[in-house]
């Protein structure tokens, strides 16, 4: 027998997709029932190119190595009380938002990829999704373990999973992933693997993790970069799925384009939270949201869409709006949270004088003109002992579920309102993008569990905000919420500092 050595590609093929076979005894459609209803046409799964060729033995080996390093750092972090090294206790609020808002999405990614990792008829795609599923489980679990130490010394982390299912602003990320998971398997992949992981995830992780490094948070920085090392594989899956669908059948092109339009907008709305974290929540800044958007979306995304043009794919709808929004979105989002700080599970605060100068420098066209006056007024009120909180509950956008606080981009003094009628009801939106998404699938979005509506309907344990926060959200009032100034977090931090610990 002539020993012909298999190359990596053929070997991987033999070790994965060759395990599957054509069914003769059972109905294969019954085993893989969700492949057709979205209208996507797959003529030949064997054309799937495996983006990375990791067999399980190599997977265990490399991932174990990453985990060993990561947990060694976690152990050292808690033994040495690493939380004392952060730039300022205000910083910790950024990772509260992360644990309550982002980590549960990692969990949903684990679930979503498990589902498609079972349901795709092609073994190559299935295995890639299964590996992503277990990676995403890794991400949520390492995030919990990284935050576990912070939870012992700061408020606001303790009921993250309970909060994620209920709290008003956390319905923004929750509904994002519920939307993706409740979609068909191909839309899920375009939503998460392509639009989110490939096009937008760098905006979530890279600047944020550099921010953690810059603010002395070794635990977060380490898990973040360690998680990102899996992300390179996920991004490549995102690019592979889109090329695969577009090459399989020309009828797939308009369907895919529609999903790209939807998920790009959905993603940019979700990232408004990251925008405000970068510009307002990191005491030591890394780069502005606007800069991050330019590097990680405009440059990187531009190259990508140029590459996809040969399939007839164009830039996502409303991309011109985002070019204007990058100047405004972080300021407007933080203002929403600042004014609703009594109902948030983390602490808000007014940017310091130096921070305002930094914002002026980074946003020369907008900050001084529109936002500085607001913060200076807020500061005056705070100095008078009248820290400003908005009474009442905000109206939410039916699609993205963010309170209606974003403006017209051509007139940043004017709150944007859009609406649609469906079956005799009126629905409200924050933007053309969100309205468009609703209009394409109204039957889906009328189901939205809008936290404010739910409170008014008495489904959240009480009619007044305080009862909802305390009973239904299980927030520790006076500890988790309100301004950073005067919070127990601040008090403890100052005590550590005065004792020379921090």
């Amino acid at each position: 027998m002539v020993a012909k050595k298999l190359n990596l590609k053929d070997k991987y093929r033999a070790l994965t997709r060759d395990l599957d076979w054509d069914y003769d005894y059972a109905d294969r459609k019954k085993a893989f029932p969700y492949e057709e209803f979205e209208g996507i046409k797959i003529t030949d799964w064997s054309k799937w190119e495996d983006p990375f060729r990791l067999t399980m033995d190599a997977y265990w080996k490399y991932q174990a190595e990453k985990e060993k390093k990561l947990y060694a750092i976690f152990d050292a972090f808690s033994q040495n009380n690493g939380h004392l090294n952060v730039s300022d206790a205000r910083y910790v609020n950024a990772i509260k938002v992360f644990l309550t808002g982002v980590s549960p999405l990692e969990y949903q990614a684990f679930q979503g990829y498990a589902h498609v990792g079972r349901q795709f008829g092609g073994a190559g795609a299935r295995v890639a999704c299964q590996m992503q599923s277990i990676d995403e489980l890794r991400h949520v679990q390492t995030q919990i373990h990284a935050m576990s130490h912070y939870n012992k010394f700061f408020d606001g982390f303790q009921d993250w999973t309970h909060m994620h299912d209920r709290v008003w602003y956390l319905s923004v990320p929750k509904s994002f992933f519920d939307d993706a998971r409740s979609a068909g398997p191909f839309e899920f992949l375009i939503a998460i693997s392509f639009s989110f992981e490939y096009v937008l995830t760098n905006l979530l992780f890279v600047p944020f993790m550099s921010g953690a490094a810059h603010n002395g948070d070794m635990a977060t920085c380490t898990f973040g970069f360690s998680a990102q090392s899996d992300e390179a594989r996920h991004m490549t899956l995102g690019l592979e799925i889109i090329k695969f669908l577009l090459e399989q059948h020309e009828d797939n092109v308009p369907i895919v384009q529609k999903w790209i339009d939807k998920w790009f907008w959905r993603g940019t709305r979700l990232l408004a939270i990251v925008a405000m974290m970068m510009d307002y929540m990191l005491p030591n800044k890394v780069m502005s949201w606007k800069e991050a958007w330019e590097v990680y979306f405009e440059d990187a995304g531009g190259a990508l869409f140029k590459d996809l043009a040969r399939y007839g794919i164009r830039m996502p709808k409303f991309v011109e709006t985002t070019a204007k929004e990058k100047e405004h979105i972080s300021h407007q989002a933080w203002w929403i949270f600042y004014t609703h700080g009594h109902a948030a599970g983390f602490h808000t605060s007014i940017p310091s004088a130096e921070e305002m100068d930094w914002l002026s420098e980074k946003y020369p066209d907008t900050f001084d003109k529109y936002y500085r006056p607001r913060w200076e007024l807020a500061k005056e009120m705070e100095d008078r002992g009248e820290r400003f909180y908005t009474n009442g509950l905000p109206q939410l956008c039916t699609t993205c579920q963010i309170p209606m606080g974003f403006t017209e981009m051509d007139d940043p003094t004017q709150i944007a309102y859009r609406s649609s009628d469906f079956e005799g009801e009126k629905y409200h939106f924050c933007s053309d993008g969100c309205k468009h998404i609703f209009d394409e699938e109204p039957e889906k979005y009328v189901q939205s569990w809008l936290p404010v509506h739910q409170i008014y309907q008495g489904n959240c344990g009480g009619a007044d905000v305080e009862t909802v926060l305390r009973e239904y959200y299980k927030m520790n009032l006076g500890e988790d919420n309100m301004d950073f100034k005067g919070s127990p977090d601040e008090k403890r931090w100052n005590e550590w500092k005065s004792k020379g610990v921090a």
Partner: protein
Amino acid sequence: MSKVYLALQDNDDSRYIVEAISEDNPSATVINQPAMIRIENEGELVVLRETVEEKIGREWDVQELHLSLITLGGNVDEDEDQLRLSWNV
């Protein structure tokens, strides 16, 4: 032409990998950022196993790259000898 890029965690292995990449892609730009190193190039970027092994002084599997990789942009082509990033335009 569009830029392809990859970013690595700033650790010991990465330094050798970056050295190898710079040698094999003379037109590439190396940018140091907090805790990470970003390398970009017009059109194409290649990581060759052989060069990395030369720099690092031991056997090196292309898949080991994933231990330090933070992100990348471009179409990926990976086999036992190299990892290549490229755009088709």
